[in-house]
């Protein structure tokens, strides 16, 4: 991490919002505040659309899609109505996946606060209660620990529930059930009872939602044995991961992001299911491996545009599977580029980036030409003020600067 700061004077684009040693922080703060670029919208940018579009080809006949490979610089004009498939928003993709699975298997059910009659606070379950009844799409009272427990009990006796947390942060109340029962009961019962639940909900830093509604729960859950964690980032992988999670016999936690629900993309008409343990190659490259997931993918792709203009060739991988890591894809990339940058939204301490850094160091140390750089949020509760909030999240200029530093 020290290599980033060799040229503090030069790296003015490095704002002080990312988490560094406090000494460096103080040094760079004054200067970079004034030179900080204005904020930008990530979610609806055409760049996002193009990049997510480049991650799959149209007209897929296969049912199981592994490791969608990106083609470089796909012309956005080509992705017009002449392409097969249908366009939808990310929350609609989640709903489509959910509905297909509910249609396919009568044991699939949904429970959570306001999922039934209201259609879900982010409309992921809209229309499902009308179609399947308000018992199969169940509105629960406000007791996360208990309705998670209910889902676990239902799963042990044959159903396949999807438990929705209105916001991931609320699932902290369900930690006891998730850790002590969901993750454990298959093991402690000697394999007699399985718990095929999907726990999902929106998390991450939104637009001024306040500290309690901006939690990154993947940090807290990553240690629990017995569960799997995946994070979706595009409508395509949202639908595929939702379906895969429902079909899996393990408990799976699906992390969605509050700001990504309105992303639009064209997805195939045919049925497809993605693998829960695979990462997604967003943009192949040669110079540096950038590992990211969820919303940060878009910040990275924004930075990638700038980097390409500056002559760099970053390889961007959306790791998607947070537990376990897809070390195969990641490893192959590292063996090619020898440099790693991790861009995440978690706090610096104990986040996904921290674990990923450890895993890479353990497994691929010999292939690295430079220490792994991890850009994360600071170890602070997310402030409400918009300007402050933006500074807690890694921004594209920082990513650009980090790559420049790394590729010296």
């Amino acid at each position, binding site marked *: 991490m020290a290599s980033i700061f060799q040229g503090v004077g030069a790296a003015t684009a490095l704002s002080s919002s990312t988490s560094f040693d406090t000494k460096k922080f103080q040094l760079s703060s004054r200067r970079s505040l004034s030179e900080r670029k204005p904020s930008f919208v990530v979610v609806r940018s055409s760049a996002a659309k193009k990049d997510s579009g480049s991650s799959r080809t149209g007209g897929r006949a296969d049912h199981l899609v592994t490791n969608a490979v990106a083609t470089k610089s796909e012309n956005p004009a080509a992705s017009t109505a002449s392409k097969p498939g249908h366009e939808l928003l990310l929350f609609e993709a989640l709903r489509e996946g959910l509905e297909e699975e509910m249609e396919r298997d009568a044991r699939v059910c949904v429970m959570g606060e*306001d999922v039934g*009659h*209201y*259609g879900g*606070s*982010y*409309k992921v379950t*809209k*229309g499902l*209660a*009308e179609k399947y*009844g*308000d*018992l*199969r799409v*169940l509105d*629960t*009272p406000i*007791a996360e*620990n*208990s*309705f*998670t*427990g*209910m889902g*676990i*009990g*239902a*799963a*042990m*006796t*044959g159903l396949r*529930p999807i438990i929705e947390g209105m916001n991931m942060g609320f699932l902290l109340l369900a930690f*006891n*059930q998730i850790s*002590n*029962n969901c993750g*454990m*009961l*298959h*093991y*402690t*019962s*000697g*394999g*007699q*009872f*399985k718990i095929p639940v999907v726990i999902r909900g929106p998390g991450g830093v*939104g637009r001024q*939602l306040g500290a309690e509604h901006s939690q990154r729960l993947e940090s807290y859950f990553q240690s629990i*044995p*017995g569960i*799997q964690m995946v994070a979706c980032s595009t409508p395509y992988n949202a639908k595929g991961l939702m379906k895969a999670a429902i079909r*899996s016999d*393990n408990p799976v936690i699906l992390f969605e992001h*509050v700001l990504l*629900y309105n992303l639009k993309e064209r997805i195939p008409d045919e049925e497809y299911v993605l693998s829960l*343990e695979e990462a997604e190659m967003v943009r192949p490259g040669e110079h540096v491996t950038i590992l990211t997931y969820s919303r940060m993918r878009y910040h990275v792709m924004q930075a990638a545009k700038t980097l390409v203009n500056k002559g760099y060739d970053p390889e961007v991988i959306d790791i998607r599977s947070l537990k*376990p890591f897809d*070390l195969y894809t990641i490893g192959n990339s590292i063996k090619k580029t020898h440099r790693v940058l991790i861009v995440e939204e978690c706090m610096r301490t104990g986040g996904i980036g921290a674990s990923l850094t450890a895993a890479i160091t353990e497994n691929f140390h010999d292939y690295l030409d430079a220490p792994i750089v991890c850009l994360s949020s600071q170890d602070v509760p997310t402030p409400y003020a918009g300007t402050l909030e933006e500074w807690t999240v890694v921004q594209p200029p920082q990513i650009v600067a980090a790559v420049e530093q790394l590729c010296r």
Partner: protein
Amino acid sequence: MASSYFSKSKALIMQNLKSRKFLTLGFVNRTSSVTTSQFPPHLIKTISFPPLPARNYESSSRINSSIAFARCFASVSGGRGAHTATSVSDDVDQFCTESPSQEVDFPGGKVKFTPKLTFTSKTIEERVPCYRVLNENGDLIIDSDSVEISKELAVKMYTDMVTLQVMDTIFYEAQRQGRISFYLTAIGEEAINIASAAALNINDFVFPQYREAGVLLWRGFTLQEFANQLFGNKYDYGKGRQMPIHYGSKKLNYITVASTVATQVPHAVGAAYSMKMEKKDSCTVTYFGDGGSSTGDFHAALNFAAVMEAPVIFFCRNNGWAISTPVRDQFRSDGIVVKGNAYGVPSIRVDGNDVLAVYSAVHQARKMAIQEQTPVLIEALTYRAGHHSTSDDSTKYRSLDEIEWWRGDQNPVKRFRKFIENKGWWSEEAESEHRSNIRKQLSQAIQAAERVEKPSIGDLFSDVYDASPKNLREQESFLRKNIEKHARDYPTDVPL
């Protein structure tokens, strides 16, 4: 929160509602007078939603809108009933005959007003009575409600109670001798264990706390199977992964015990929900103690079960003690039975040391749960005549006299024995024969279980997921390499 809260979806939902009979919780438009307003039902969770045309509703032009009928879609199969515990009956269509200002429809139903500023009482004037069939001498009290039981059933219940008692005594001793690491008895609660199990069906899923080994015994778990779990050997169904007494059996529909207190209560509600969805002719049963009733899970589970109308029997073993905490330090309500009442769950208090009372209550509760699709709460008053577990010495916080008294004639085994002996179904010879038989079986089972080897190292890593992931495979091979390197330090009775 996100803007999606206030989307136009509510209009969409209104159009799609097919049921005729629903009336939703709505914000009452309090600016208009109660008597004259003709507002149709509103959807909750919207802000200043304009009144919609009343075409879809059973429109009495009056106050129906804010009565708390459960919202339900007519297209639901296995859906919930339109009435909740708080709903007023159908004749609400008529306005009440009293002067209107004495009642107002708040969300949740009509309420009568009173000019008296009084609070409900803190002290309990009269406790909920306790249902009992047999007295201390094993005689039937004047009784018309209990279920008739046959000689066969009575003798089986009694012999299983004795087996449980002997099993508890001997396994407890085995722990004291250092042969097993931990044990927990059900001494004093044999009637609760056996009689409740006897009133259930094998298809009823059991979600135990930890003092319900008798339920498993009744269903057919053998003494050898118990011993295998206690010794954690390779025949243990849990593959040696849990502490002793954390039994579990899929074939007997008994969910593996977890050490966490009362987490099984919401599990039972979820399983009941699953049975309700699949319209099964069965219910779920969950057991917990007086201490467990203080947890958050207990309250939310009762609440949910009532709202969902789930067929679950909540069985509370109020044995007076939560390790060293007496009930007076646990809650100040009249036990647990009134809590069921508070949540809208039909509840009963029974004498937990009376086999026939427990049997009848559970028998009736099961019928209610399945036929009426309702949760039921049973509070069984009893006494924990043993220590909390082998890690506890209860004489430290309660008197020996008290313990001895409850082990005496109040003892459920003794009471029921008197009953069946009076009927001529049992004798002293049968007693001593049965007891020595069980003791012999137990010592054989213990010896056999002790000799069996432990689960292999591979079982440390299996079943964490359905298939072993790469990191676990790596960790296993690392462990095995270590074992090879240091073979002398590795225990001989753990196979590789």
